């Protein structure tokens, strides 16, 4: 059944996206619909059987036991199968709904991971999380509540009307009058209470905001002795919230359940009256009245349900729209086909780069790094050091210019070859709550020998061997806690596990302890000559042995040379930075002496 609710015309794409899932599993849909129809048929048979029972037997005082028993057995069978069919049908619809949400969630999540880095510059993580979890949850309501409830109740309503029609067409029309009456009552309610409900919601979020702000600012409130004033403000807000809720409860008490119940009593009156007329004409059967009374009891409920679900429908469509937009974001460009980095010769040619137009981050950069060389990049925060690494990792593409690896464009390499050919040691050592093995493997499916070799290169193998479960030792919250230096070693092993030709090292900004510094230092010395390395350094002492040190300032290389060359240049920025760090050490010394 195609349900097109209000406001869906401009959300056509979202709607068809969501509807696709309904048709996706056709056998399941057909099964669910069949169950629904059978359940409704079995359901409405009950009162008809009761009618026959009353009119043909009780009223005629015809107590023929076998027929009576047969009727009762029929009745029992019809009702039991209605219950069973209804249960099965509900589960089928739930199944469809959950399968759809599951698929949308998976799609949205894996899609978002493939979006280019640029997308994340402007996106707020909290919002994205909410789209993947909350919004998809709202879509679930669309399927479970809206489709299933509305569909079920519409068909039930239809079934009841048909059964009523079979029994007595005139009385059916009395019952039909209920439909417009209930619908108009509910629409009247939504119109009248809309403002009050919106106001209640608004005040509710204001109360939340107020409490949250007061808690954060409590020390300020107390230090300035303003408690009374703030208590008064809160209590005013609290009171308006109470008033607003009273207004909305008035509307709902006047128009929802009580009014609908009143309507159904009125319909009851109408039916008995109409029946009375037929008695006068001599055409009435008491059993019909009995059946109508049982139908009527089930008539208003579906109507009220259907009308109330339209609210949910609108909310779900808004959520669906947001998810749809997310899924429609363009993914990262697929990369090239070259499968391996051979030597690790790096060439930055004439690179210009900006995140936002007009704010250049890198300017006219030309760097040529021969295979196996160690280059260090230093400079102030915001000088463009990390951006250089971002370009190499292909998180961003240069605005102009090219990055060449072994004289091939970066974009000609496959995703896989870049990930295994370029190792990254990030600022924060990130440890998974998993085994040491998995922490080095990181899901790349490496061989045991490769893992062990990497651990050896990072000087971690011997330490791991002394652990009770070796490479299968659990790390993280409930497992073994590694020292800062060991964590760094683990991260180095992880980066080396695929035997990369190029290694990028983003050194931690926070003051690194000497243990960690030594670890990094030793790794750099070991690899020097075999792997091309770019080290973004904050501690100038770790890069003394670099083949070349590039000093970046405002996106330009202003100094370049070996440690000794740069130190020998009077007034060089590098020299001042180095001296500043020396002074920082002197300050630090005094902090630890008493």
């Amino acid at each position, binding site marked *: 059944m195609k349900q097109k609710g209000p406001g869906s015309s401009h959300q056509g794409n979202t709607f068809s996206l969501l509807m696709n899932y309904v048709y996706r599993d056709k056998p399941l849909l057909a099964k669910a619909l069949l169950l629904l129809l059978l359940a409704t048929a079995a359901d409405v048979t009950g009162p008809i059987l009761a009618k026959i029972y009353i009119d043909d037997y009780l009223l005629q005082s015809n107590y023929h036991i076998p027929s009576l028993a047969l009727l009762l057995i029929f009745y029992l069978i019809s009702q039991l199968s209605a219950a069973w069919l209804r249960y099965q049908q509900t*589960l089928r619809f739930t199944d469809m709904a959950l399968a759809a949400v599951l698929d949308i969630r998976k799609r949205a999540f894996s899609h978002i991971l493939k979006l280019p*880095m640029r997308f994340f510059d402007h996106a707020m993580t909290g919002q*994205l999380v909410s789209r993947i979890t909350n919004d998809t949850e709202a879509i679930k309501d669309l399927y479970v509540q809206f489709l299933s409830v509305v569909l079920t109740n519409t068909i039930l309503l239809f079934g009841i009307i048909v059964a009523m029609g079979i029994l007595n067409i005139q009385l059916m029309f009395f019952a039909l009058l209920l439909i417009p009456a209930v619908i108009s009552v509910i629409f009247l309610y939504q119109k009248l209470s809309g403002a009050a409900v919106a106001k209640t919601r608004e005040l509710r979020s204001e109360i939340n905001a107020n409490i949250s702000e007061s808690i954060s600012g409590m020390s300020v409130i107390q230090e300035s002795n303003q408690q009374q004033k703030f208590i008064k403000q809160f209590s005013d807000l609290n009171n308006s919230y109470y008033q607003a809720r009273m207004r909305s409860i008035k509307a709902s008490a006047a128009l929802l359940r009580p009014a609908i119940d009143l309507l159904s009593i009125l319909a009851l009156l109408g039916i008995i009256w109409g029946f009375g007329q037929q008695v006068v004409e001599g055409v009435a059967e008491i059993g019909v009245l009995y059946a109508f009374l049982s139908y009527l009891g089930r008539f208003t409920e579906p109507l009220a349900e259907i009308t109330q679900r339209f609210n949910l429908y609108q909310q779900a469509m808004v959520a669906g729209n947001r998810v749809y937009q997310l899924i429609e974001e363009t993914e990262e460009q697929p990369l090239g086909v070259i499968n391996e980095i051979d030597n690790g010769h790096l060439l930055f040619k004439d690179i210009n780069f900006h995140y936002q137009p007009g704010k250049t981050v890198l300017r006219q950069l030309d760097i040529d790094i021969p295979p196996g060389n160690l280059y260090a990049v230093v400079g102030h925060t915001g000088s463009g050091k990390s951006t250089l690494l971002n370009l190499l990792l292909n998180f961003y593409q240069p605005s102009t210019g090219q990055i060449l690896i072994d004289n091939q464009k970066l974009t000609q390499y496959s995703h896989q070859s870049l990930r295994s050919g370029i190792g990254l040691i990030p600022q924060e050592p990130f440890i998974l709550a998993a085994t040491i093995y998995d922490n080095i493997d990181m899901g790349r499916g490496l061989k045991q020998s490769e893992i062990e070799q990497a651990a050896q290169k990072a000087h971690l193998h011997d330490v791991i061997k002394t652990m009770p479960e070796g490479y299968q030792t659990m790390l993280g919250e409930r497992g073994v806690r590694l020292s800062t230096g060991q964590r760094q070693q683990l991260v180095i092993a992880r980066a080396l596990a695929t035997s990369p030709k190029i290694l990028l090292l983003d050194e931690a900004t926070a003051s690194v302890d000497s243990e960690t510094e030594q670890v990094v230092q030793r790794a750099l010395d070991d690899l020097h000559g075999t792997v091309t390395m770019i080290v973004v350094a904050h501690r100038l002492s770790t890069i003394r042995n670099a083949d070349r040190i590039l000093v970046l300032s405002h996106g330009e290389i202003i100094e370049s040379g070996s440690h000794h060359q740069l130190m020998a240049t009077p007034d060089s920025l590098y020299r001042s930075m180095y001296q500043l760090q020396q002074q920082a050490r002197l300050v630090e010394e005094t902090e630890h002496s008493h």
Partner: protein
Amino acid sequence: MTLFNNLSWFFREHWRTYLVALLMLAGVAMLNLAVPYLIGLAIDELITATETTTAETDIRPYLLALFVLGIGVYALRYGWRLILFGTSYRLGSILRARFYQRLCKQGQAFYSINSTGDLMARATNDVDAIELAAGEGVLSGFDGLLTFILVLIIMFAVIDWRLTLVALMPFPVMAWAFHRISRSVHQHFQQALDCFSRLNQKTQEALSGIRLVKAMGREEIESQAFSSISEQAADSNYRVAQAEACYDPVIHVCLSTALLFTMSYGTWLIWQQQLSIGQLASFTMYLGQLIWPMFAFGWLLNIVERGSAAFKRVDQLLKTADTINDKAVLTPTGAELRVRNLTFSYPNSHTATLNQLSFDLPAGKVLAIVGPTGSGKTTLIQLLMRQWQSEPDMILMDGLALSQYSLKALRDQYAYVPQDSFLFSISIAENIALTSPSASQDEIEAVAKIACIHQDILSFPEAYQTQVGERGVTLSGGQRQRICIARALLSKAPVLILDDALSAVDVHTEQQIITHLKDSRNEQSSIIISHRLSAVEHADETLVLTHGCLQQQGNHDQLITQDGWYSRMWTYQRMEARLEET
């Protein structure tokens, strides 16, 4: 039922309102009972008419009675909803207000162990759960019980007790099934919530670490991990739906069985001419009315269970004693501070945050406190303001221990600018005049000028009336700090405290503010904490703290000549400044 016991103060206070609501509920239940009865009578009347073929029936009195009844039920239902829900909203309102007042009485010790998120959850979700128990809990308990009893009475007494006994046989099964279902829904719902929060966590984790995910090529693995959690979430959602879907068949099967029994046994009774067809019809309608009580009992258990848990959490906070005892009544007459051998460690900590500190701050002088992060500077300030309780007699103001003064009087002595410059979502003028709401616009502008923020404020769309925060302007860190300084200056308290309150302001503005302060505060004393030594160069005395110990003490000229933290830091910061100029 301990929940209702705990809330008895409220029920006692509003017993009249509750009584009226409950009477109305009882009225509804009774009137509702009359509906099937009247219909039964009408049917019998009609049957007599068809049988006697007189065609002279008058069912109009019944119809009129039904109509009046319908209107009456409507009015009563409207009434009890308004009263019962209104009263429970009132309860929520009172609890929230009390909660807020308690929050205002709690000091740093309390906020350091209770997270904002947790406090928020108690003030909102938990209060809602209590409200639900006091409103719908009372409703379902009372109404369910009443309907149950009344329907039973009618069935037994008015229609036929034997038929009732036979018909009721399936109902205990229904009650038992409802209880089971409601428990399993609750349990699976908890699991579903749990899965949902893990889903949130996983997404949050992956997205905040997106750089690493991409660099390590973990897109596939992350997606797989996400999928498996999603599948678990779908699975537990399915279980919730499965458990919920059981309600319908249970009602259906039990009711059908009851109807079957009624029909068979009723037929026999009619045969024996001990029952009329109309009575049989009304009896079956009464059976339908028994569903709600069965449902209500199951639901009641659930709501009360949730309400009790919520009440415990809220009550625990409402009963938390004031962090700082505020019984003293004295008001200081002067503001000289004298600190002797001050040692302090935070609760649950074994190391002393401050160790054997001694210093004086005479009126009108400037005291500076410097030192590396974590050396105890802010703790010292908080102790001076008695936000934490220190050992008696270690800190004296005007010759007496801080605990001799009322908290209000003590804090009136200080104008404090905290590290994290906090502004409320009100206008800039109101933010500055927070402590002195009666200040004139001129006074506000005067302090804004001293804090070098006047020009900035004038550039905002509505100048001093501009709202701060989401609905207004977003201010830079430096602007926020300067507004907080203006706020403190307006209070004219004897001691001004700047807790690293110039960190986000550039050096030039910092010097300007320091000069303004020197000029405008002659009789008042100041305590300045700063990471930038240039801001405290002019101090009468400077304390150098490292790891809670006083390492050096003296004025700038003395300190600069000693080889220590101060002089080395001074050199470092000058080198840094020079480097930045290039």
